[in-house]
């Protein structure tokens, strides 16, 4: 069973067969060319394509990230501005309100003053009128009383005398 011929299994004649060598060379070169065309080429192209695809994806992602960051910053800025503006508006409103309040108060005060003034003036006028009327009435009354008193006590001669006196007086007054 385990004879010596087993030992040279495959070695065959042990010689170099030129035919085998040529065949191997040709077969290998043909295989190389075919594989390059049908297998390695396409696979390597795909790998390269994937590489560029990934690179571009990463680039896009990076760009998007930067864009988002920029936008966020912008929004932040906008928000800050808006807040400031709102603050400003509130401040302004407060200021305006205060001013208005002041103005209203002032005008009210002035109005009151004016009203008071006119009221006082009216009172004065009324008082003067009343005094005038009283004076007139007092004069008339006293004349009436006097005439009554005089009428009762004056005699004929006295009356005459008095009239003359008056007439004289009038004449002197002219």
């Amino acid at each position, binding site marked *: 069973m385990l004879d010596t011929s087993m030992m040279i*299994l495959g070695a065959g004649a042990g010689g170099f067969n030129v035919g085998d060598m040529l065949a191997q060379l040709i077969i290998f070169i043909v295989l190389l060319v075919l594989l390059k065309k049908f*297998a390695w080429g396409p696979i390597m192209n795909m790998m390269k394509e994937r590489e560029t695809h990934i690179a571009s994806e990463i680039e896009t992602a990076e760009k998007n990230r930067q864009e988002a960051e920029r936008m966020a910053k912008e929004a932040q800025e906008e928000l800050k501005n808006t807040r400031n503006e709102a603050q400003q508006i509130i401040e302004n409103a407060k200021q305006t309100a205060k001013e208005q309040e002041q103005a209203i108060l002032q005008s009210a005060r002035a109005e009151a003053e004016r009203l008071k003034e006119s009221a006082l003036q009216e009172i004065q006028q009324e008082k003067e009128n009343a005094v005038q009327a009283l004076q007139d009435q007092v004069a008339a009354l006293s004349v009436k009383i006097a005439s009554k008193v005089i009428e009762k006590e004056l005699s004929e001669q006295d009356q005459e005398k008095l009239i003359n006196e008056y007439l004289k007086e009038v004449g002197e007054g002219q």
Partner: protein
Amino acid sequence: MDHKNPMWNDPFGISWLDFNLSNIAMMLVASTIVFIVATLAARNLQRKPTGLQNFMEWLIDFVKGIIDSTMDWNTGKRFLPLGLTLIFYIFVANMLGVITIVSFDHYLWWKSPTSDPSITLTLAAMVVILTHYYGIKLNGVKEYGKGFFQPMWFLFPLKLIEEFANTLTLGLRLYGNIFAGEVLLGMLAALMTSGAFGAIGGALPMLAWQAFSTFVGAIQAFIFTMLTMVYMAHKVSHDH
């Protein structure tokens, strides 16, 4: 159990041309398997790889790593298809003999094509000639010629011998490993067919040796490719 090679001597009356038909057949089988697997992987390529495409891309990255470790990628990338074809073809060829060995009518038909020295030496010679070709192509004749006299001029004979030694060792290493594996497999197979005891006793060693042969076949394919790239780098790189 006397194995003979199915020879086709002196075809068409050409006396120096002999064919070992089993070698030719096995070469064709190995090449066909490699071609079919590779083209299957390259069919329906997707950006998001699956299955066989993944394996092929791993292989490509692996060979790329081999080339990267010996020379810079700019000069090395042109050798990627060569390295890929070498590693894949040699691996498949090695595996053919591990799977089974078939002899028919005392003629040995199914074996590893790489268990024949003329085939491995052909591959080795092809590689070495390619290194010279690319050495001249990429560095120019002057630079290429100078390589033989560096680092010292008197080392020229050694350099000359080195080229042949490289070819011989590259080819014979592969042949030796695969052939030895097949011899032992053949002996174990013979043991197992010799009787009941032989079958029981030989089963475990057979299993172990097949596993080891698979390992050796893969390693040898890797080493062959690695050394190809090393020799190539030696010739095409400017400073070494």
